[in-house]
């Protein structure tokens, strides 16, 4: 039985090999070579692409990308945790509806949602029209970093709320009563019992928000107005505009390594918690 059942895994292994391992190997290969992509014979081993990265222009872009992603993640956590908490404390029959409010936007196209924000935030957009109408000064949010962060928080908030909600909803009501019974008021119960038990949810939420936020290029292009170049935009440009696949690949590898390092740090936070089943890794 045991030997036979492993054949069932083959389709998935083949799938993963074709669509994950081979592309990764290709990206790695391109990043360590130089020459003409379309003439395989001309490709030579080279670390030139990695060397390029240490230009202050590119370093600043990656620092900015991580900073904006970090800011968005913190904001998502600050908004998302209370929201998840409120939903988990709501009456059972209201919970589904409240969750739905957070899920419905995900079902709509990501681009469409971001375009909608453009329509709202642009200099002649909905927000400024309304401000003009009531006689208030207009705001120059878009294009700019504020609009990019807002777009990230808006788009990724559900990914923070859901894992935290899942963990919160699993906490036994009796455990909270036990804390109260042992002398803990609401605040102490939250700090000493609820918060520690939701760390796995926070770790997953942070991971699920930070990863797409650091590598996004759509939000920064649409809401940043082309001025706010992030690492995602930089990589995209290497493949579409500059046709420098070697540099694009090197940037992708660098981003991947940096995300892996950040996630490793996050998982350390979770390491103390032995039932961190909700963490991604």
């Amino acid at each position, binding site marked *: 039985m045991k030997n036979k059942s492993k054949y069932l895994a083959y389709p998935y292994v083949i799938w993963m090999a074709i669509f994950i391992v081979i592309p990764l190997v290709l990206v790695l290969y391109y990043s360590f070579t130089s020459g003409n992509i379309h003439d395989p014979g001309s490709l030579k081993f080279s670390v030139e692409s990695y060397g390029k990265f240490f230009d202050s222009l590119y370093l600043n872009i990656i620092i900015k990308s991580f900073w904006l992603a970090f800011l968005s993640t913190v904001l998502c956590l600050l908004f998302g945790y209370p929201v998840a908490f409120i939903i988990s404390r709501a009456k059972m029959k209201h919970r589904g509806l409240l969750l739905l409010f957070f899920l419905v936007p995900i079902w709509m196209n990501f681009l469409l949602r971001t375009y909608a924000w453009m329509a709202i935030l642009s200099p002649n957009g909905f927000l400024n029209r309304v401000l003009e109408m009531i006689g208030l000064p207009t705001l120059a949010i878009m294009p700019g970093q504020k609009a990019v962060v807002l777009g990230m928080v808006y788009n990724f908030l559900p990914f923070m709320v859901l894992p935290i909600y899942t963990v919160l909803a699993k906490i*036994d009501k009796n455990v909270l009563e036990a804390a*109260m019974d042992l002398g803990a008021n609401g605040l102490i119960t939250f700090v000493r019992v609820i918060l520690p*038990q939701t760390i796995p949810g926070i770790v997953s939420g942070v991971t699920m928000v930070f990863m797409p936020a650091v590598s996004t290029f759509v939000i920064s292009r649409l809401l940043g107005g082309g001025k706010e170049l992030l690492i995602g935009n930089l990589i995209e440009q290497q493949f579409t505009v500059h046709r420098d696949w070697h540099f694009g690949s090197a940037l992708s590898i660098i981003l991947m390594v940096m995300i892996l390092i950040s996630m490793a740090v996050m998982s350390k936070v979770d390491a103390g918690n032995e039932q961190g089943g909700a963490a991604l890794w």
Partner: protein
Amino acid sequence: MLRRNIIELRNLTKSYNDTVVVDAINLLIRENEFITLLGPSGCGKTTTLRMIGGFEDPNDGDIFFEGTRINNVPPYKRNINTVFQKYALFTHMNVYENIAFGLRIKKVPNDEMKKRVQRMLKLVDLEGFEKRHVDSLSGGQQQRVAIARALVNEPKVLLLDEPLGALDLKLRKEMQIELMDMQKNVGITFIYVTHDQEEALTMSDTVVVMNNGVIQQVGSPVDIYNEPENRFVADFIGESNILEGIMHEDFLVSFSGRKFRCVDKGFSKDEPVDVVIRPEDIDVTSPEDADLQGVVSSVVFKGVHYEMLVESGDFEYMIQSTDMQPVGAGIGLKFGPEDIHVMKRGSDNEK
């Protein structure tokens, strides 16, 4: 033995959406008493306990703790601790931190805290388990941690909500004995909730039988078993034969078409009553020298005894006896005046 009252429930009432769960109950609980709230599920026993603990607000009535009304005192300010049905341990802490939780909140100095936690670990027989994660413990061990976590705070009253419900029979019996010992050792009031009548009779000083949110009877286990006040108590506690009868005068009752001497008095003349005879109080004899005659209709082996159903007149008696009679045998049933328990017929008999 006269003991001070520690908790008094006065007219305590709780309802959810027009369903009355606890219906105006009055109860006095004395210091150092092991008192059990016993009843079927939905009888209001757990709700009563939760109101004493402060987890439910009564709709009406008062709770007094050492003479002070505590209706509006939140659970974390009551000198009462609870052992929850599913233990409700803090899974992100080890055994030591679970037990120390209440002491840390009270900012007990480290040395004293260590000493008190160690004393509790010894009491619940879990020395050496300090660093263990609570998830790695067996059900019985988790339950003991829950008890230690509550007792370490030195409450005046410990509430226990079906604490042994999740344990297997053998462990449950062991824990019953351990709990009784602990209660004697620490000398505080235990208020214990269970639906298991045997558990209640084994452990308690006082048993409070509840049904439909109403207290049916309060008494010692012996009183509750031997002198049930109504049909519900007789039926719920142990096995019973409950017959309808007429109380002719003091010490004389008739049922099954015969008059019997009994030890009960104080009823009005020819008052309709319920009569209880416990299955183990009926002796099997030859038909000739017996009070009643009957035919065995079924026999079940129960280990210690046989349980037989005997048709006599229009009633089927349950008899527990080590003396097995085959199905179809004509036998005699014999019982003394002290085996006949006469009860008033209450209005809520059929509930």
